[in-house]
């Protein structure tokens, strides 16, 4: 079908000047000269999170997408510079509150590496259980957002319904529904009794049963498959090139998971497999996360079955096994020896990098760096949109589980 190029002198609509767009003026003119136009899938759009996507569209086909993130940037790195190390724990969970344990774990491991604190076994198992619960919680949250972007309201309600079980197990274990701030340098804040662990153990089976009905009504739903199959394909080479991380990298065929490459906490004492898919399209990205939920359930069950007795907080931090009453005395005046400490943790949406630079004297970090997965795979997400249809923007957005507060930090 031969394209007929009409050189119609179309000047860009005047509201582009009033909006502060990160685009040079020539770019906008060039777009309109080429008979394409810019659609702003703006910060307040039912089909995108709090970020603006400047979509350059020719007809219905997306030529190029320029992200304009930063609407929910809360300068966590600057805030962390004038808070005590232990006061940063609730702050560090704020980028992705449904994935709080993983973010909290990464930060606390950086402190433990600096002070070389030895974490007791039971605390390691408890941390792994919390991390996996939050991983399942985040995958369900992303599945729900994907469903609502495809217009499947039931697909939105089921995962949030199942996520109630995750929140319930977190409440029973830590006291708070998701931002538990339960992991502290040296272990966890409180011991978890047997009854709660058993409840969580049976909750994993209840989750599995409910996931079956979610699978029938959404995951294997022909309309969903039609909307997601071969959409937003990211080949293995492209995924590596654009620095995609986490389940979205594994969906393009790269078998890399920080929990296997550098196992931390109790991941090496538990047998589970990395989930990989080859196609790299939206559906395989979604399928990888669905199977990861099954793997996480497996990890949780093994952890609960094999959890050893013993201390939950290391004796370098507090003599007896309970920090209640002396939280400030034991943890407030932590001063990290001067130097730079970096850790890599596998959060639900990818690897999160923490770097703490301490000047050795002050009890607040000199420089604090957090790179969340959303920021890492934003480029891959934008590249995968190239050449797709405009209506698929939401489907690919949902398949990437892009979460602006996490990406903007």
């Amino acid at each position, binding site marked *: 079908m031969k394209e007929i190029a009409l050189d119609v002198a179309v000047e860009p609509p005047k509201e582009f000047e009033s909006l502060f767009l990160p685009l040079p003026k020539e770019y906008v003119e060039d777009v309109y000269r080429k008979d394409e136009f810019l659609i702003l899938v703006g910060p307040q759009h039912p089909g995108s999170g709090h970020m603006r996507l400047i979509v350059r569209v020719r007809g219905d086909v997306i030529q190029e997408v320029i992200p304009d993130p930063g609407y929910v940037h809360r300068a966590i790195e600057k805030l962390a510079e004038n808070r005590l190390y232990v006061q940063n724990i609730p702050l560090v969970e704020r980028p992705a509150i449904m994935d709080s344990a993983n973010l909290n774990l990464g930060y606390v491991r950086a402190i433990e590496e600096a002070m070389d604190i030895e974490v007791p076994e039971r605390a390691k198992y408890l941390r792994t259980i919390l991390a996996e619960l939050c991983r399942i919680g985040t995958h369900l949250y992303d599945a729900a957002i994907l469903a609502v972007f495809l217009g*499947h309201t039931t697909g939105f309600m089921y995962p949030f*319904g199942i996520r109630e079980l995750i929140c319930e197990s977190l409440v029973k274990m830590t006291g708070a529904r998701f931002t538990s701030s339960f992991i502290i340098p040296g272990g966890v804040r409180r011991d978890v009794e047997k009854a709660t662990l058993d409840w969580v153990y049976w909750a994993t089976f209840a989750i599995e049963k409910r996931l079956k009905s979610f699978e029938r009504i959404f995951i294997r739903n022909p309309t969903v498959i*039609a*909307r997601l199959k071969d959409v937003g394909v990211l080949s293995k080479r492209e995924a590596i090139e654009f620095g995609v991380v986490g389940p979205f990298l594994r969906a393009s065929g790269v078998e890399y998971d920080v929990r296997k490459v550098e196992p931390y906490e109790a991941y090496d004492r538990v047998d589970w497999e990395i989930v990989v898919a080859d196609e790299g399209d939206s559906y395989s990205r979604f399928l990888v996360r669905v199977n990861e939920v099954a793997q996480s359930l497996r990890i949780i069950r093994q952890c609960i079955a094999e959890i050893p007795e013993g201390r939950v907080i290391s004796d370098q931090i507090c003599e007896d096994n309970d920090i209640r009453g002396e939280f400030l005395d034991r943890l407030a005046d932590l001063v990290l020896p001067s130097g730079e400490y970096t850790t890599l943790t596998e959060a639900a949406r990818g690897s999160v990098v923490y770097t703490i630079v301490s000047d050795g004297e002050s009890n607040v970090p000199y420089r604090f760096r957090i790179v969340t997965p959303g920021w890492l795979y934003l480029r891959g997400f934008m590249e995968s949109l190239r050449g797709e*249809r405009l209506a698929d923007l939401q489907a690919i957005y949902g398949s990437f589980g892009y979460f602006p507060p996490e990406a903007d930090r």
Partner: protein
Amino acid sequence: MNMLEFAMQVFRANMMDIPLINPIVEELMSVPWLNLVVALILWRPFFAVVVMPGLVVIMLYLLYIIWFERKLTARIQWRVGPLEVFRPLRGAIQALADGLRYFFQESIVHREAHRPYFVQLPILAFIPVLLPIALIPAGNVVGIKTPYAIPLFIALLSLIPITIIAIGWASNSRFAFIGSVREALMYVAYEIPFIIAAISMIYLYGSADPYVAVEKQTIPGALLNPVACLVFLISMLMATSRLPFEIPEADQEIAFGPFVEYSGMLFGLVMVLAYEKLYLMSLLFTILFLAGWSGPQLAVLGDINAPLWLVVKTLIVISILSIVRSMYARYRIDQALRFGFSWILAFSIIALAIGVVLGYEGGI
């Protein structure tokens, strides 16, 4: 004999006789002025258009369907649905509450919109929605008795998408443009199979007259020509943009499509448009496939039996259809069109073939 006596004479000629309420009607007829009003209401064509399969039932149907659909979708989605509006009835009058809210809400007309069209179009959209009601027969209660009721009904029905496209154009907003273009694309995709399916049934029954269709349906039309029934159902979903094909008003992509700029009473009218279209199409579906108003008659009810059967069957069809909203995700516009033009068109031609074969010499 002045106008009034003439009118009274016309009405008395074609009055509904419902044994159940006949004594009351007789007693009311004695009152000088009231008898004219009662006569008018019980005059068959008036009764058909205004009361039974007409306006009053539409209003009740709207209240019922909006509430029922939300409750059913909620039930499927592990939740409870509208509840707090009226605790004892567990949220039954939710639709009434919404209606009142829209009624008192301010209808904002934004600056760039084409003011006259923007305001009048939702009201004009009601013409193609209400005119077909006159053609729907129910037993001997009928608005306009013509042998060509079905093709006329379909013709009027296909005017509705035009008003929706005009609404989209009048609101002059990017999302509305995209919405109305999608409505136009979908309209072409579902209208052809819909008409072919209806024609195949006309072939089957031999005539375009609903009375003939209903008498011939000793076995319901759905069993006679299941393919046509399937095509009819799917194109009904596409026509009223029910979920797998809710593309013109895809909230996530284009924020409620052509109706994005509406608020207040205008929004109320526009939102209800899709439901009324569904009601009309399922009325036609009942007549063509579920043997219209035939069913065991209750003597005491007399004339009202037929309309009652027709409405009940329609409500059942709509209630079953509304489950679709919680089952499916939304197709992309090109997928829907490809699906519409390839599968549904093919099936409708098969249905036409069955219709022609079965109704070879003058219908079964």
